[in-house]
Structures are given as C-alpha cells and as structure tokens.
C-alpha cells in the first residue's frame, strides 16, 4: 500500500489553525496525562507497601492516663494491664509501645552512626519500643538472631532517654549499616553515648511514616526493649487469635477498665484495627491517585471527542473532493487510510511537542514540589495511548468519509 503523505500535508496547510489546535491539544493532554499517570503509579505503589505486621489480627489501643502518676505506679499499672490483656480468651499476645508503630504516621526516629562521634550519620532509623512480646504481637518474621529476653526489657519514664544495650533491627537497616552482611552481634549508636548491639533481625518492618522523608529511609527501623511508662499515656498493641479480631477488640477495653478506671480510651478512635490504620495513613495517597485518575479520564475523553468533532467537520467540508477521488478510482480503503494517516501526522507532531512539555513539567515539579523525576516509560505509555486514542477517535468520521459515494462529485453544492 502506498501512502501519499505529500497531498495530506498540502491539504493540512489549508487548515493550519485547526491542525495546530488539535496538535496543541494532544501535546497538552500528553504532558498532563504522563505526569498524572506517574503520580498515580507512585501513589498506588505506596498503598501496597507491606508493613511486616500481621494486619488481619493486630489492633492498637491508645490509652491515656487520667492521673499524674509517678513512673513506678505507671509501670505497675502497665504490667497489670498487659497481663490482663494476654489472658483474654480472644487475645494471642500484647505489647506496650511508644514512639509510634508501623504505619502510624508520625513518631520517633533517630540518626544512626557507627561510632559515637561520627559527624555525618549513616542513616536515619525509626525507633520502636516494646517488650519481649513485641515480635510475636506484631507477627514479625525474625530472620536471624533471637528475641529479647524478659530481663533485657527496661523501664522508660516520661520523656526519659534510655539506650538499651540490645536492639532488634529491620533487615533494611542492618544492610544499610553493614552492607557486607553479618550485622548480627555488631553495634551502632542511635544519638546516644552508649552503643546498642544487634541481637536479632526482622524482615520486613515498615517505618511509622509514609511521607517523603520516611520514604528516603524506607524500611529502616529498630526496636528497643523498653516499657514506656510515660505519665501521659501508652499504646498497647494487641494480636487477636486468628479470626477473633472483633471479639478481642470488644474484650480489651473492658478488661482495661476493669483494671483501673483512671484512664481514657477515646470511644471514637481510641481503638483501631490495622485496616483503619492503613486506610488513614494512605488517605492522601489514595485521594491523589483517584483525583489524577478522574482528571486523566476526563482529559482523554475531551481530547477524543475534540478529534471526532473536528475531523467530522473536515469530512463534511471535503465531501465533494472525496467524491472526486472516488470517481477517479480511489478505493474506500484509500479514503480511510487518508484520514487515518492525516490524524497520525497531526498526533505525531502533537506527541513530539507533548513529550517536551511533559518532561519540562515534571522537572519543574521536581524542583518546586520535591517530587521525583519521572521515568521515560510513562512518556512512552502516554504517547502510545494518545496515538491509539487519536486513531480510534478518527475511525468513525473516516469510515463515514470512505462511504461517500462517487456520485457526490457530480453534485453541485
């Protein structure tokens, strides 16, 4: 098949403005769609991040103390609470936590160094605290070393800073600190004068945050054997027996209030299961993905409709010429090819300009909004989508054109 490009270009010169407008529209659509796709993909990737927690059966209780107790009294109460929680029929295990928990949003993090006076830290680590039940309660996978022993767990009072000698770290942190492996038994400093020795490694373990800063140190977290007896309050993480999450979430607050009434567990959001925690922390990511998705769909629909509209107009305008071509021996297929090729040429010009715009817009957002640079794959996908969209949109008017009868040539307008 011999496609004649020259006559198409000559014909387009007669519709300069229309051609330019379609090309411009395709270019802008490409620029926006690429960047939106990039944002959508980024955010959806965030949504599926693994926490390392047995999310189907773990929940968190935010327990605030209603009295200003000294640390020993808080400690006694925390121990009693934990005992009561662990004895509940629907509960498998429970642990006291502070400084946040995986996917809690904000929380405690420390810079980590290998020597006490190292000026620039190796990395930043999320800091979790818990007792010897931490790993079992969260359902973490211990891939090396051992769990904490009960005698290693220390008491941490209100705004007190204690550096335990032992720590369990995530594999991501272990690999970052000791890239050649063998992190077990080695020591690090987490903004403290004394070192902590790695006694165990878990994998995976998500940080508290899902923000830009946390993502820079993805999966790097350490657990210290501490019972945080803060006079303000404490979080209890509880793991229900399989399938008994609802029952455990009902029993737990009753058991705690039976222990002591001098506490506040917010009836609205004091107890949250992990489905809720995950939904909340990724709220803005999900929203952004949906918003960008809606905008993409609207944009592509409008551009496609625009192409249909303008091509239909051109077809209507050229009925006589088409009739002449048909009368001179052009087949229906030739007419169809003509319009498809014409659209392809315009689209090609549009996506060429659009590619430049897309990259420029992305680079601008990188400098202005701390977004990450976009991979060219998104531009590739966008180009493909727009070319196909253009060809699809032009198909109906082109088919109509191809059915113009040669008789039209003889009719005067």
């Amino acid at each position, binding site marked *: 098949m011999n496609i004649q490009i020259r006559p198409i270009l000559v014909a387009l010169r007669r519709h300069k403005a229309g051609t330019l407008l379609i090309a411009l529209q395709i270019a802008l659509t490409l620029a926006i769609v690429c960047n939106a796709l990039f944002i959508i993909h980024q955010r959806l990737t965030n949504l599926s991040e693994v926490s390392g927690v047995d999310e189907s059966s773990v929940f968190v209780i935010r327990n605030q103390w209603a*009295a200003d107790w000294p640390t020993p009294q808080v400690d006694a109460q925390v121990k009693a609470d934990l005992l009561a929680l662990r004895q509940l029929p629907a509960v498998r295990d429970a642990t006291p936590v502070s400084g946040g928990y995986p996917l809690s949003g904000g929380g405690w993090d420390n810079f980590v160094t290998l020597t006490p006076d190292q*000026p*620039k830290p190796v990395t930043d680590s999320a800091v979790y605290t818990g007792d010897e039940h931490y790993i079992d309660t969260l359902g973490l996978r211990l891939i090396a070393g051992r769990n904490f022993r009960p005698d290693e767990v220390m008491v941490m009072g209100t*705004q007190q*800073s204690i550096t335990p000698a032992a720590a369990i770290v995530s594999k991501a942190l272990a690999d970052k600190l000791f890239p050649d492996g063998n992190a077990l038994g080695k020591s690090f400093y987490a903004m403290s004068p004394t070192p902590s020795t790695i006694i165990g490694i878990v994998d995976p373990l998500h940080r508290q945050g899902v923000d830009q800063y946390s993502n820079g140190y993805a999966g790097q977290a350490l657990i210290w054997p501490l019972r945080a007896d803060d006079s303000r309050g404490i979080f209890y993480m509880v793991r229900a027996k399989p399938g008994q999450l609802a029952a455990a979430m009902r029993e737990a607050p009753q058991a705690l209030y039976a222990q002591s*009434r001098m506490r506040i567990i917010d009836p609205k959001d004091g107890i949250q299961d992990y489905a809720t925690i995950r939904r909340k922390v990724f709220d*803005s990511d999900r*929203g952004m993905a949906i918003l960008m998705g809606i905008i993409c769909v609207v944009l592509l629909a*409008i551009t496609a409709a625009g192409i249909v*509209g303008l091509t239909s107009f051109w077809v209507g305008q050229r009925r006589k010429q088409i009739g002449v071509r048909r009368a001179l021996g052009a087949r229906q297929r030739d007419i169809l090819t003509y319009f498809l090729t014409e659209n392809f040429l315009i689209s090609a010009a549009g996506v060429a300009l659009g590619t430049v715009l897309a990259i420029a817009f992305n680079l601008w957002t990188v400098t202005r909004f701390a977004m990450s640079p976009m991979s060219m794959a998104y531009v590739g996908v966008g180009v493909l989508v727009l070319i196909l969209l253009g060809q699809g949109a032009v198909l109906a008017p082109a088919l109509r054109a191809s059915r113009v009868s040669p008789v039209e040539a003889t009719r005067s307008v």
Partner: protein
Amino acid sequence: MFAYYLDLALRSLKRSPGLTLLMVLAIGFGVAASMTTWSVFRAVSGDPIPWKSSRLFVPQLDIWGPDSRKKGGYTDISDAFDYTDALALMRDHRGKLQSAMYQVSPSVVPADAAKHPINVSGHAVFSEFFPMVEAPFKYGSGWSAQDDQNRSHVLVLSDKLNQKLFGDVNSVGKSVNIEGKDYRVVGVVDRWNPQPRYYDVVNTGGFVGDGAEDVFLPFNTAIDVGMPNNGNTNCNEIPKEAGFIGLQHSSCVWIAYMVELDSATDVDSYKNYLDGYMRQQQQAGRFNWAPKYKLSDLPAWLDSEHVVPDDTKVSLLVALGLLIVCLVNTAGLLLAKFLRRSGEIGVRRALGAPRAAVYAQFLTEAGMVGAAGGVLGLLLTGVGVACVGWVLPKDIAALARLDVSLLAMTLVVAVIATVLAGLYPTWRASRVQPAWQLKSN
C-alpha cells in the same frame, strides 16, 4: 441587536447539537475541576488573620549551628524554641505583645465521680497571647500579666468544653480540676478555631479539622505543675537529664513563639535585639558559630512551613491544565463551526454588516456556549466540593466551602474563558471575503 444575536446563536447551536453538547461538556468539566481544586487551595492558603498577619512575626534562632543542618540535610534553622531562649525572649519583652507557647493534652477530672475523666487539648501560653491573636471571648477575658508572674492556677476554656463541663452558662470564677489540681476559669473563648492554626503550625502542620482547642493555661503555671509537652520535640542531642525537667534544661526545641510588631521601626529594632541576643550568647561561649537568626512575618512563616500541602498545589495545577486543554478543544470546535458558516457570513457582509457586527454575533455565540458550560460547571463544582472529602485528607477537605463568590467565579471564568477561546475563530470569521463566498455559491 443583542437579542437578535442571541437568537442567531441559539439557532446555530441547535443546528449542530452534538458539537454544541461537546463544547458545553468540555467547558463544564474543565471549569468544575479547576473550581473544585481552587476551593480547596483557597481554603488552605487563606490568611487566617488578614487584618493583622503582616504585624505578627515568628523569630527563629540558630542554636544548633550549621553542623546540625548538614547532618539532617536541612537548609532552614530550627523552627521552634528551646526553653532557655523562649524564656529569655519573654523576659526581655521587646515586642508589643508576645507569647511563648507549647501544646498540652491534660485530662480533666469531672466533679461528678461517676463520669469518666476526659482528655483535652490546648496550649500553655502567656497572658499577651489573647490580645495578640484577638481571641473572641464569650465570657470573661484572658488572665493578667500578674497571673503569669504569680503562676496562678487560672485557665481559659473553649465554648465547647464549657458546655460539656458546666452547660451553657457563664462559668467564670468556677473551678476545673485538671490532673488533681484546681484551676479557676477566667474566660470562655467563643467559637474560635483559626485555620491554619497559625500560632503553632509546627505542632499541627496547620490544619486540625474541627478540633478547636479546649483549654489555655498560663505557661509558667503549666511548667510549674510539670504538665508535659504533648507536641513535637526535636533534639540535636539526647537530653542529659530525664523527664520534663530534663527537656527544659536541654537544647531540644518544642516551644512556639510569636510576637506582634506594629511598625517597620519596631521590626528593625526587634531584629537588632535578636542579633544582639545571639551575639551575647556566642560571646558567653554557648556556641562557636556565627550568630544567625530569622524573623518572618506570618505569611512568610506559613509559606516556609509548607502549610499549603504540595498535593494541593499539584492538584490545582493539573486541574488548570485540564481547563486549558478544554479551552483549546473549544477553540478548535468553534473554529470549525464558524468557518462552516462562511457562506452566511459572506451574505451578511455583502448586505452591509461591518466586521464589528460579525464579531458581536460570534462572540455572543461563544459567550452562550460559555454560559451553558458555566451552568453545567456550577452543578459539577457543587458535586466536586461535596465529594472532595473522598479524595483529599478530611481535615483539609472539610475547609472547602461552596459559597456565592465561588459560584459567581465559576460562571465568570466559564464565560470569559470561552469568549477568549472564541476570539481567534471569530477573527477568522470576520476575515471571510464576501465576494468569494457569493461567487462560489
């Protein structure tokens, strides 16, 4: 004449309903997307205290030095105060009004023993906080400078907490038990929940939804009774001592600070004061780097704290992009539509219509498409604002409001944008050569 053009436009639009519908849909969606994201952007970027924001300032002191910034990869000096410097600035009292403040979350024990204690949120502030932020009082007022000094056990309640504890009565003079200690109510703030919560954006990020603050109590009193800080604490090094006392003795930053300065001269002299203060600290051997401080007015401060989330800005940009594509699309369709009527234009021109008449006729038609698109845009914006909580974080989405100005703007933007998009097609239409058209027909 205008009525005639309206009639012509209506006839023309009716002649190709598909094309017309397409243009109206494009304008409607484009305008609605832009207006919805604009309503959110407008809400989060608004000035919380427009009549005064240029006179409110937030100082920053470089007490951690350049090494700390290198370590953490930051460029700005720390955005909160440690206890020592906050108190020193309060003592020197160089602004017209000023207050150091920190976030607290104590529990209130109801007098009725059968009721559960409740957890409340609030700030420990100085007496000048209330006149500085112009908090509206329903009953009573703030406390006095004397109360600050005497570490009096007084407090200011929110309207909401007052309702909860006492019912809707003037509770001034009554007593509230907070963690075992009695405080005398001196004032009740009438519904007041500025967005963003500009006096302490470090702890709130700016937006806290509908959770207005429940209590305000004197800073010195809160320190005295050891009411710990419930907000962010940032440390350059681990405090040497434990507990809340240890935090007060450390270089950790956890206190917000705001000062009112009424004239440019006052601002200059306050800058001089900060400079002098930092020099003095350096000479006293507290640090060995060049003294550095910053004094930002409220708008600059909100900007540097990124109170408007990047997501909101990116959404607005993308939605504006959508609007532009819709306009380009409309321009293309109008062009096709207008040029199809070259014959009609030729006849009108030959019968003596000047170019201006052609302009008026076709811009009327474009404006009509814009108005129809605007009406559709109104409906879609209404839907968009109602559903925005579905895609944006609740505390921010809750601020987006549908009001008369937004609705009016939707219509105006739709009409003006469409008329702009119609300018080129109209110009082309006005260039139609009457002789040509008449001959070829």
